[in-house]
């Protein structure tokens, strides 16, 4: 019913909207030629600089993924139906408005050792059992923003809300709900006719209520509260089937960007996160995760001639996660807290460099990008000592082409990515090698420690439709050879 309402709304808006025939072409051209620059402009007060025309894009997407090798906690694949609406409007008095909405309906397969939403965000402090199974997820998001120019200063405000729920209709019956409210404020100062300096501040509140129920009278698996490397709190394992996560993200970023995507680009960004986990019938916080993410990005784009541009860039990201665990003591049926200790640590460093050549003309645009990354990942657990260390090299080639045929636009995109683990070491001291937990760890380790080749090909064709709207339809398929992973997607929408 909810889905039907959304589709009806989508079709209604499509039929009453007034279109601009060049909107889609300009959007596609901007997207093709400035793909690597979006992060520099990721601030509300820079939104208008990265939106070439006012537009509304409404699309319906379907994506299917299957994989023989996979991280158990994330599942072997999914079917994802998605409706997405984005709009950017330039109003009078130098005011810009934008907004968006999406709905995702996901059927995830074979999710194991994870009974929580947002695994990547909450890792390693997830609630789990060894049974798992398929999940049905629904995600909603609504967002909106405004910016206004005051002389040479632009102030911007953006906010979003994401709601998710996840259920399983057989034991273990997962019922998870999460919400994420985000607000971002930024101020942009125009330095001269070319460059801008922007300061953005972001605040975010995350909450998840995770719950597992069992209807079977024949028995149930233990609910485990994981702490990393397959470790878990033995005292709290069993039937504490509820967990609550409260997270706060906060960050700031400084952006140095040209007004017209030509010249020097720089970005420095910090995001901090604290997440507290509480479990059923326990007064104190069980786990705390503290994250620090730093990112520095630098690039330059120059016009080789009137139709060609050369872009180079590099970025460095440094992610740290400090995991704190509480230990408890049984004392007359109470469980007072004994200590809070930093047992889990994770760091990830990523150096990336790229070079991109772009060309635009009346009938076609294309770009070719080659990039390479060196990634270091290191995770440790203090007692018992466990460790995983990886170093990857990643080389990627990307080619995109927009070809105009009268009033149609054909967009093609091809990506090849080669990832090779240069080194990988592990040490696990928590349990015997004949246990299922060991098998889980080994599977996930082997998944990461695999040389992969990823290919993706996408095509999209647009048509003008009555009332000057643009209709497009596209598909993409990708494959990762080492994982026997196949991804297939369809998209269709209107831009006006």
């Amino acid at each position, binding site marked *: 019913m909810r889905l039907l309402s959304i589709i009806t709304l989508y079709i209604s808006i499509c039929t009453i909207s007034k279109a601009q025939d060049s909107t889609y072409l300009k959007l596609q051209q901007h997207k093709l030629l400035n793909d690597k620059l979006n992060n520099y402009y990721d601030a509300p007060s820079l939104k208008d600089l990265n939106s070439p025309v006012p537009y509304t894009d409404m699309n319906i997407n379907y994506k299917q993924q299957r994989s023989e090798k996979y991280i158990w906690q994330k599942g072997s694949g999914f079917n994802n139906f998605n409706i997405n609406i984005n709009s950017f409007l330039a109003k009078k008095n130098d005011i810009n408005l934008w907004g968006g909405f999406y709905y995702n309906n996901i059927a995830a397969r074979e999710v194991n050792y994870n009974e929580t939403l947002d695994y990547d965000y909450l890792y390693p402090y997830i609630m789990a059992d060894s049974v798992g199974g398929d999940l049905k997820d629904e995600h909603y998001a609504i967002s909106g923003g405004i910016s206004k120019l005051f002389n040479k200063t632009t102030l911007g405000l953006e906010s979003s809300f994401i709601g998710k729920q996840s259920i399983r209709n057989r034991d273990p019956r997962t019922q998870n709900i999460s919400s994420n409210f985000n607000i971002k404020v930024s*101020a942009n100062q125009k*330095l001269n006719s070319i460059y801008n300096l922007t300061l953005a501040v972001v605040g975010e509140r995350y909450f998840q209520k995770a719950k597992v129920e069992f209807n079977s009278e024949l028995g149930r698996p233990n609910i485990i509260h994981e702490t990393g490397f397959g470790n878990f709190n033995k005292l709290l394992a069993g039937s504490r089937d509820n967990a609550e996560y409260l997270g706060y993200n906060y960050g700031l970023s*400084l952006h140095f960007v040209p007004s017209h995507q030509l010249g020097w680009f720089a970005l420095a960004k910090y995001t901090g996160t604290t997440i507290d986990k509480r479990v059923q019938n326990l007064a104190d916080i069980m786990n705390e995760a503290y994250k620090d993410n730093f990112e520095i990005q630098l690039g330059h784009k120059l016009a080789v001639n009137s139709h060609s541009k050369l872009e180079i860039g590099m970025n460095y990201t440094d992610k740290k996660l400090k995991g704190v665990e509480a230990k*408890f003591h049984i004392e007359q049926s109470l469980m007072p807290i004994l200590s809070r*200790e*930093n047992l889990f640590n994770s760091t990830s460093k990523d150096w990336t460099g790229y070079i991109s050549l772009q060309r635009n003309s009346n009938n076609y645009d294309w770009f070719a990008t080659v990039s390479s990354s060196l990634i270091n990942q290191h995770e440790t657990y203090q007692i018992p000592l466990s460790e995983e260390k990886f170093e990857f090299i990643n080389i990627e080639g990307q080619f995109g082409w927009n070809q105009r045929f009268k009033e149609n636009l054909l967009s093609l995109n091809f990506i090849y990515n080669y990832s090779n683990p240069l080194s990988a070491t592990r040490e696990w001291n928590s349990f015997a090698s004949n246990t299922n937990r060991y098998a889980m760890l080994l599977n996930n380790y082997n998944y990461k420690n695999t040389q992969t080749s990823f290919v993706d090909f996408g095509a999209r064709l647009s048509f003008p439709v009555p009332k000057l709207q643009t209709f497009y339809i596209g598909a993409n398929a990708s494959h990762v050879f080492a994982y026997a992973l196949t991804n297939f997607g369809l998209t269709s929408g209107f831009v006006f």
Partner: protein
Amino acid sequence: MKKRIYSLIVIFNILFTFAACERDNFDIKYSGIRIKLNVPTGIQNPNLTEIILTFKESNTGIETIAMLDEMDKLDKVLPTGSYTVTLNGKIGYSRDNIRFVEKVKSYKDGIALTGQDQTISLDLFLANDNAGFIFKEIFFTGTQTPENKLYQGDKYFLIYNNSEDTLYADKLLISQSTFLTTTKREYTPNVMNEAFTTTDICMIPGNGMDYPIAPGHQLLIASNAIDHTESNPNSFDLKNADFEMQLLAAINVDNPEVTNTITISGSMTMHNRGFTSYVLARLPENVSVDDFKTEHYYTYSYLSGTRIVTANAYKIPNSYILDAVNLTVPTVFEWIVMSPQLDMGSSYAGKLDGDTNRFGKSVLRKELTTNPDGRVIYQDTNNSTVDFIPEATPSIKNK
């Protein structure tokens, strides 16, 4: 405009510095541990060796094995946590001028370590991994009536669970020796070092788990499970015995409310002067009574004067035997009638043969110590001379 730019950069620096500042200290804290060992009561001249402590943390499940240095300090520091500790070691001690070495254990839970050094007090208790059912008391002499007549129906065995585990009394054998400790003979073939020779065997019924006996609990097995005080004020009330033996028809009084033991062989007429010995045994699971009787039938011969006497009995392999007690009369003692591996000594109820003072006396095993849980551990060194109190007052008498 420059001011605005500077302002933006200054704000960024302030916010960045604030955001990146160091958080709380969550370092792991460790506790140094000193152990205070409390030796069991009654142990003289203790000497503790090979002490190994295992600390298990409840949150992580991690076990840490540690030893003590000369200052009773643990050789490892322990991270914060909620701990259970178990101790295993050996204790040497003296009793009756004899030196013994036994296993010693301890256990304590609910130990909270929070990073400060701590002293943990542990109460030690003796532990014998081979401990099991033992003869706690054998009352074999009978009593005398006020008229000085013999009263023989009130004999009994007390079988005690000396282990840390619940044991099952089902199919326990009680057997009296055929050979006498007061008459040494050359029996041919000589199987003394491998088996116990008997013609009197009774067995506790049950299918394996019908008669659980908790640690520190006992079984009373009476000749006649009746209140003997009704006819003999010098005797005892045995009507609440756990089992009743089936004696010779002439002297058997059956109390239908008390379960009878199963007679395997003979009649278990206990020698009232204490010339015989007793063993407590159990057949292996794959050996039935019939198999035992077939496979362990024993024909032996000995020289009596100038005559060779041939006789038949059963031999219970030493490996079946759980406990053994040699009884005798010291003044006429000639030998022990079993392998010294089972019992290298003997006990008695009367020093002289035919001593009428023996009536109303038993042999009673000595208490070694009492564990912190109140459970009495009886001495069991496989030497009845030191393990038993001879000429003891029957423990039943005061109940």
